[in-house]
């Protein structure tokens, strides 16, 4: 059956450290993968997109990797700050990129 898994439900790290979130999938062949941030009571906000033929993408303190052999994406936040505390969702672009399937999310807490 098709499945998307993300880390543990919650991840706590100290300010200034690098947070690494994982997204693993089974029985999907995504054309691309996106990461979103969701704050409590708000809708998700797009962060980064990585295509199946790309290994790595960066944007400021964010880095995403995509390994189609391992069926895994890693999402890194370097020099983390308490303002980075939120839930992070991965989304697989499926159906030739026409729609998206979301993972369950990882709740990240950056402690001062």
């Amino acid at each position: 059956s098709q499945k998307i898994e993300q880390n543990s439900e919650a991840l706590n790290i100290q300010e200034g450290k690098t947070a690494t979130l994982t997204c693993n999938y089974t029985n999907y062949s995504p054309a691309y993968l996106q990461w979103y941030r969701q704050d409590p009571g708000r809708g998700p906000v797009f962060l980064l997109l990585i295509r199946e033929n790309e290994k790595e993408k960066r944007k400021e303190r964010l880095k995403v990797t995509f390994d189609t052999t391992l069926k895994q994406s890693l999402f890194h936040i370097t020099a983390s700050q308490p303002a980075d505390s939120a839930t992070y969702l991965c989304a697989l672009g499926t159906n030739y990129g026409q729609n998206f399937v979301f993972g369950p999310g990882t709740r990240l807490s950056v402690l001062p």
Partner: protein
Amino acid sequence: EAGVAQSPRYKIIEKRQSVAFWCNPISGHATLYWYQQILGQGPKLLIQFQNNGVVDDSQLPKDRFSAERLKGVDSTLKIQPAKLEDSAVYLCASSLIIGGRAGELFFGEGSRLTVL
């Protein structure tokens, strides 16, 4: 640029009652999605529109949920009759199609439904 607008933000109803949610996507976005997000879970796609046509409604419980996008702009999602398990946040999102593929999704703030 205005974002995706949704209303109402909150709604409390009793089971077996009906409810409707409204969404106005970003101007020019042909694709519109309705997602259901239960507390602690990721968003689950209910229905996807391309202009005013349905692209995917395979996970929409059609015995109680209906959605329409007349004129290819605004959309309404209706639940009738509501069940306790419909308690969730209903998220509307829109996107452009670039090169045949959907771009990033722009989400509204969501409509939180509580069914008692």
